[in-house]
């Protein structure tokens, strides 16, 4: 059960082009359903090959996970591991996120107050 994801992406791009050039009609609905069927088939085929849900030997639970769990309290003093990751290990990520909030509100205000 192998899916070439590049083929799926190419079909997706092609279908989107047809979608933008067609008016709202029955043909467009059928086309959207075909496109979603292709995407859904690719996703389901991917999920069927993923490791079992909830097993403790899955690939995400590697040494990074062990490092965060064992060293977080000693490194940051925070009991909550998520707070330790957000505001200490990956604080630069949070800085970018604060920038995203600032940009969003600046864009929304300049949009709403525009003449």
């Amino acid at each position, binding site marked *: 059960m192998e899916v070439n994801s590049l083929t799926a992406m190419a079909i997706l791009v092609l279908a989107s082009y047809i979608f933008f050039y067609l008016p709202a009609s029955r043909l467009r609905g059928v086309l959207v359903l075909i496109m979603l069927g292709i995407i859904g088939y690719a996703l389901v085929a991917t999920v069927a090959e993923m490791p079992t849900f909830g097993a403790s030997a899955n690939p995400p639970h590697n040494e990074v996970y062990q490092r965060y769990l064992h060293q977080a309290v000693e490194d940051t003093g925070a009991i909550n591991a998520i707070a*330790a990751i957000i505001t200490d290990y990956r604080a630069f990520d949070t800085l970018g996120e604060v920038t995203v909030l600032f940009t969003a509100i600046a864009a929304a205000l300049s949009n709403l107050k525009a003449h």
Partner: protein
Amino acid sequence: MEDLLVRIICRLVVPFVQLYGLYVITHGHLSPGGGFAGGAIVGASMILFALAFNLEAGSRKLSHDISLLMESGGAIGFILAGFVAMLLGQNFLTNKAAGFPLGVPGNLFSSGAIFFFSVAIGFKVGSTMCTLFYNLIEGSDRHRSSE
């Protein structure tokens, strides 16, 4: 809008919601929560106040200038708390290596700079949500009347 029950219940509930939001912000390193969740709760409480009463009452509680000041202050406070570590001779946004006192894990005043970061993020998120809602409600009216 003119319902008496809604107003009384909101006047009762909003202070407790805000207290819970502040609790979630300040205990972010001990329990689930943190800056994002607590700031969202505080902002939602202000939106609830403005919904139950009218917009003028909400604007009187938290005026536009104060809200914009809080929002810019949250972002600038986050960056300044990062620059403190640079003044202490370490990289930007470091916590333990810059010499912030970590304290005993489990106490309220532990974990150094994480507390300041959480408070800054909480201010930022709460005032952002509040300002977005106020401007979505009223921004276009002012534009239409000025035309």
